[in-house]
């Protein structure tokens, strides 16, 4: 498990390195001294330094960055950053100077690297080459300036607004129109430029909808200035894309003037259809040439023989009288009374009557008169009168009487009366009727004249308006920088403006003469085809406008994207399109942006497809909108996925799942996350699901969610395995015979296994969280190792640490392992009870000692034994020859020398020679015994084994011991109580009989001597031996115990009792080898075990275990 973990970590490191090396950004890391520790390939490229050159060198040297504006170094020393623990962000305002002096505009982020404890141990710099971006921006900025100046200088008011009508930009003209400052307008909405209470705002909003839908709108409405002046304006708005955002550019034209003219025209047309009475006086003179009328009147009078005059409606003359009689002209009209009567009569005569002329006697002279009205429309403007004829109705007398009445000369009047043209009533009636017709015709003509005049005025005005409008439109077009074209669809004749040519890099002159072929020549064939199709649709009335995006060949050879728009303006009589007007707009930038967008979209799509995690896009109803191929692979069974509910496809569920991070993301607007089960039966058992909300950039509302799905079945399995392994390990830890205690860096217990519970009596619940010295007070001496392990991060070992448990001395090995890996801090303390091992080791040491003694003895025994034989054997002979009275040679030699052997013997005895010889023999014998015993330690390969009954062997040894002691009178063995506790049917064991007897004998002798000593000290004491023999089936051995109730042995003695030459006896009583030889015989020669247990003052028990089968 541990191995696997380390592999995983390794893999992760490799992955991280790959990531670092493959990210598009430059990356440099340093240590706390600012020395570079890592640099990735991008950083190598930008700085111009190679990794092997820079590792260990100063960061300042490699990352040479200055401010774009000041030219100053961005920071003086990397140490500043490290010491201040700050984060620096440079956004395109910095220049990186590479090793070879190349300059890159960069954006960079510099932040500190921290270790686990939060100490700064270096920095990491991530930077990006933004040179291209920067240059693009510079270029854009100059373009923008150009457009801005155009914008500002336009004669029309221009306002830039967003989809909601918020004003984003206005030009000066627009401000002037409204009397606002630019700042004030920027806070307003376009709808607020309309006066309240009109339906202007409503119009504006409708137009906005159309604009959003179609990208173009034109409407007229009322506008209101800051001062409250309402004026008429016309808005032409078209769509522009800036950074994928649709905004409107609207041109406002003040159409007050146009409006006024239109209103005036309307008034006249209305006026013409109404009776003239309501209008100011129109005179005949204004309508006709009076001279012409006079001639017409004179000729009529002459032809018919009647007098004639045209008067105003009050009877005052307009024309001069023609063919007037002397009576009326020279006599009656010369008098005051007569003239007034004449006028009154004339006005009466001219009374308007469409049915026919008025014929009646003159109210002045009484001659016959007739009249007809002249009118324009229903307006009576003049009277045409004829008359001054007589018939039977008038006589001389009535004339004389009237002359007297008006005070005129009676005789002259009578005479003049005779000169008056006589005419029949019938004839006069005909003439009057002709007059009526004539006057009516004149009226009609007058009306037509007036209408004509009005029409002409109207036409003139309209023409002027049109010219104005055209000029304004041209201004607008100029302002919007559009090329224009006019096309006679029938003749193919075309007119382009200068800009049309300019868009494709020519002057108009260069491409003149122009025709439809000019368009065909420069336009991309593919686009031309589309254009023709669209035109046809427009011609067929399927499209209201013709609109087409097309590529045109620029003079420089590249393609220019234009937006071609137009509309039929006039039709032929038979309804075919005649004239069409349109514009060209250079949309190359927008188009390129679109193409870039498409590219980046397909790039993104590639990324999405290449990601080995599943990606699924959902809408608010949890419908799947889009998935990548990984999802299709994983959920093949649910295909097709798009359009279905996510829970149906991914979970085979009829309702949304619980828990669902996507639902939460919709609610919270944040990225949400869950680990959820995969589809039943799928290879994807467990998935990690991230739900990223997609927000509307305007409203912030979550409109959808991107689900990022990762197959973590493997990981989950690994985690489960890990959990199992953890349980397993925990079981192991708990079943271990060692105490295992985990602590954190502060010495607080974090782990406490069963053995620790057993030894301390503290449950793990009680122990965990306690300081170690509190949980385990006896451990306080060891704390220094724990601290050392934590600080030095090295394993600390304290071996054979003594501890007393119930008065028993135990040994423990304490090991403190610092936990330095896997981010866990602290230590594990392991405590092993090694008492048994320590004891075994002690015994092994003894065995080794014995073996070395044996080896030594074997090597030198011969060399000691030879001279010892010389000493001892000579001493024997000496003793024999000096003391043995029986020896014939002694007697014989004494006799030869005449000395009694008795005398010699007495001499020897008196001089202590015998005793001394005995000493030599005794000492020599002890040496021989030591050598012989030492030799017992030598391993012998050829010892002979026989099967013996251990009980019989023990009994024999007891007999032998009692004889020996009886003999020497040192101790009366018979006074010792012997208790035998032999198990029945003890099997025979393979052994070297004499050696085992020697072992028993040694123990018996030691025990007897010890008990004798005790008896001497206590007096009242009953010594006893207990012999036990039983079978130890577990060990496949025979247990033989020899227990005495002697003085016992203390701990120190007990531990050393089997050591060679260790003895508690007086120097002359024992060689100190007896028990060690015994131990050697049992453990080495017979592969058995030998222990001694004792309670001082009470008893000693020797335990011998001999194997049932012989071991090689």
């Amino acid at each position, binding site marked *: 498990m541990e191995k696997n973990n380390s592999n995983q970590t390794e893999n992760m490191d490799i992955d991280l390195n790959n990531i670092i090396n493959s990210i598009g950004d430059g990356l440099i890391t340093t240590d706390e001294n600012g020395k570079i520790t890592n640099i990735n390939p991008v950083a190598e490229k930008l700085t111009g330094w190679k990794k092997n050159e820079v590792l260990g060198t100063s960061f300042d040297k490699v990352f040479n960055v200055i401010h774009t504006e000041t030219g100053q170094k961005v920071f003086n020393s990397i140490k500043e950053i490290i010491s201040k623990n700050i984060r620096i962000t440079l956004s395109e305002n910095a220049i990186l100077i590479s090793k070879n002096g190349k300059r890159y505009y960069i954006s960079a982020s510099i932040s500190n690297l921290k270790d686990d404890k939060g100490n700064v141990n270096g920095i990491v710099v991530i930077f990006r080459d933004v040179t291209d971006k920067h240059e693009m921006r510079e270029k854009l900025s100059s373009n923008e300036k150009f457009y801005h100046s155009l914008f500002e200088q336009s004669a029309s008011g221009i306002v830039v607004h967003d989809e909601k009508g918020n004003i984003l930009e206005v030009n000066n003209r627009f401000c002037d129109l409204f009397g606002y400052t630019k700042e004030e307008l920027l806070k307003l909405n376009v709808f607020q430029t309309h006066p309240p209470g009109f339906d202007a705002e409503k119009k504006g909003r409708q137009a906005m909808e159309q604009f959003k839908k179609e990208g173009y709108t034109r409407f007229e409405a009322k506008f209101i200035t800051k001062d409250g002046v309402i004026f008429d304006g016309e808005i032409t708005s078209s769509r522009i894309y800036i950074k994928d955002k649709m905004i409107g550019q609207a041109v406002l034209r003040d159409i007050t003037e146009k409006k006024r003219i239109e209103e005036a025209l309307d008034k006249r047309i209305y006026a013409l259809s109404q009776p003239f009475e309501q209008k100011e006086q129109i005179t005949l003179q204004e309508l006709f040439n009076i001279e012409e009328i006079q001639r017409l009147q004179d000729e009529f009078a002459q032809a018919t023989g009647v007098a004639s005059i045209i008067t105003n409606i009050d009877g005052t003359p307009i024309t001069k009288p023609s063919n007037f009689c002397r009576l009326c002209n020279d006599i009656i009209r010369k008098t005051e009374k007569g003239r007034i009567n004449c006028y009154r009569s004339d006005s009466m005569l001219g009374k308007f009557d469409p049915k026919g002329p008025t014929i009646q006697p003159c109210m002045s002279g009484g001659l016959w008169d007739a009249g007809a009205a002249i009118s324009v429309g229903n307006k009576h403007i003049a009277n045409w009168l004829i008359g001054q004829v007589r018939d039977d109705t008038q006589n001389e007398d009535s004339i004389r009487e009237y002359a007297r009445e008006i005070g005129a000369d009676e005789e002259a009047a009578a005479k003049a009366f005779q000169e008056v043209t006589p005419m029949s009533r019938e004839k006069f009636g005909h003439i009057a009727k002709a007059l009526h017709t004539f006057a009516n015709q004149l009226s009609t003509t007058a009306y037509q004249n007036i209408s004509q005049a009005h029409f002409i005025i109207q036409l003139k005005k309209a023409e002027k308006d049109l010219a104005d409008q055209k000029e304004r439109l041209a201004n607008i077009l100029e302002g919007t920088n559009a090329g224009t074209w006019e096309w006679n669809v029938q003749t193919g004749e075309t007119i382009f403006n200068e800009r049309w040519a300019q868009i494709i890099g020519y002057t108009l002159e260069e491409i003149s003469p122009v025709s439809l072929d000019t368009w065909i020549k420069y336009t991309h064939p593919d686009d031309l085809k589309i254009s023709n199709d669209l035109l046809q649709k427009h011609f067929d009335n399927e499209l209201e406008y013709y609109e087409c995006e097309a590529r045109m060949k620029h003079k420089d050879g590249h393609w220019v994207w234009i937006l071609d728009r137009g509309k039929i303006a006039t039709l032929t009589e038979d309804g075919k399109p005649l004239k069409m007007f349109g514009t060209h707009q250079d949309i190359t930038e927008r188009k390129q942006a679109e193409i870039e967008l498409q590219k980046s979209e397909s790039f993104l799509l590639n990324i999405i497809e290449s990601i080995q995690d599943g990606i699924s896009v959902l809408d608010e109803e949890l419908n799947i909108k889009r998935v990548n191929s990984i999802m299709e692979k994983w959920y093949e069974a649910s295909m097709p996925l798009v359009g279905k509910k996510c829970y149906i496809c991914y979970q085979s569920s009829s309702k949304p799942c619980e828990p669902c991070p996507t639902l939460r993301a919709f609610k919270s607007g944040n990225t949400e996350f869950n680990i959820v089960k995969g589809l039943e039966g799928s290879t994807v058992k467990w998935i990690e699901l991230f739900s990223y909300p997609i927000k509307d950039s305007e409203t912030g509302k979550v409109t959808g969610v991107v689900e990022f799905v990762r197959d973590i079945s493997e990981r989950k399995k690994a985690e489960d395995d890990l959990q199992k392994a953890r349980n397993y390990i925990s079981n192991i830890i708990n079943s271990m015979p060692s105490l295992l205690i985990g602590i954190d860096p502060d010495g607080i217990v974090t782990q406490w296994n069963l053995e620790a519970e057993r030894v301390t009596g503290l449950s793990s619940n009680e122990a965990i969280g306690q300081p170690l010295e509190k949980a385990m007070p006896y451990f306080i001496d060891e704390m220094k190792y724990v601290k050392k392990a934590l600080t030095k991060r090295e394993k600390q070992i304290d071996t054979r640490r003594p501890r007393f448990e119930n008065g028993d001395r135990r040994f423990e090995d304490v090991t403190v392992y610092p936990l330095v890996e896997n981010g866990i801090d602290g230590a594990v303390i392991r405590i092993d009870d090694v008492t048994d091992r320590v004891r075994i080791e002690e015994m092994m040491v003894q065995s080794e000692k014995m073996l070395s003694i044996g080896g030594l003895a*074997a090597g030198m*025994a*011969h*060399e*000691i*034994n*030879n*001279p*010892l*034989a*010389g*000493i*001892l*054997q*000579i001493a*024997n*002979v000496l003793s*024999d*020859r000096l003391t043995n009275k029986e*020896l*014939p*040679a*002694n007697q014989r030699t004494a006799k030869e020398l005449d000395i009694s052997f008795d005398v010699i013997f007495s001499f020897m005895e008196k001089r202590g020679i015998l005793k001394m010889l005995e000493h030599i*023999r005794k000492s*020599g*014998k002890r040496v*021989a015994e030591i*050598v*012989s015993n030492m*030799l017992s330690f*030598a391993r*012998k390969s*050829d010892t002979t084994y026989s099967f013996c009954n251990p009980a019989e062997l023990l009994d024999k040894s007891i007999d032998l011991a009692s004889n020996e002691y009886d003999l020497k009178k040192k101790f009366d063995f018979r006074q010792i109580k012997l208790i035998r506790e032999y198990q029945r049917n003890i099997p025979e064991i393979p052994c070297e009989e004499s050696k085992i007897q020697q072992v028993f004998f040694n123990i018996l002798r030691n025990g007897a001597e010890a008990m004798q000593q005790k008896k001497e000290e206590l007096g009242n004491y009953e010594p006893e031996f207990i012999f036990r023999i039983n079978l130890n089936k577990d060990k496949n051995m025979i247990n033989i115990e020899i227990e005495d109730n002697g003085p016992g042995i203390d701990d120190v003695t007990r531990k050393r009792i089997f050591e060679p030459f260790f003895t508690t006896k007086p120097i002359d009583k024992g060689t100190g080898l007896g028990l060690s030889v015994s131990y050697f015989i049992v453990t080495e020669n017979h592969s058995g075990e030998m222990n001694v247990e004792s309670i001082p003052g009470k008893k000693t028990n020797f335990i011998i275990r001999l194997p049932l089968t012989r071991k090689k």
Partner: protein
Amino acid sequence: MNKNRKSLLILDDDEAVRESFEYHFEDRGWKVKSFSNPQEALKSIEEEPPECAVIDIRLPEMNGDEFIREIYRRNINLICVICTASPEYSIPDDISSFKGVSNKVFIKPVIDFNLLEEELLYILKQNFNSGELNE
């Protein structure tokens, strides 16, 4: 002294040891010849073979085992008891098969000479009974 005196050859290169054996057995009526050199001992045996011999093992030029083999190779049926200072010594199988050679090895120092004498007499008696003695 008389013809019944039993003869014994001591072969040991340690003078004190050799003398101790010589004096002890002489005192007890044995006819003793002692040698420190095996070749000289062989020569003496060729001339006048003794009944018994006490042989040391570590000897100059020729060790005790070889010496005994040489004697038996020459068909001399000598009663031999090996007496050596090497406690680890054990009699080679070929030698222990010789009838006159005692299987008991005496390790020097020999504390009780009587045991040695008893062994010599015991083997002598056995060989005499079986009638294989040189006499």
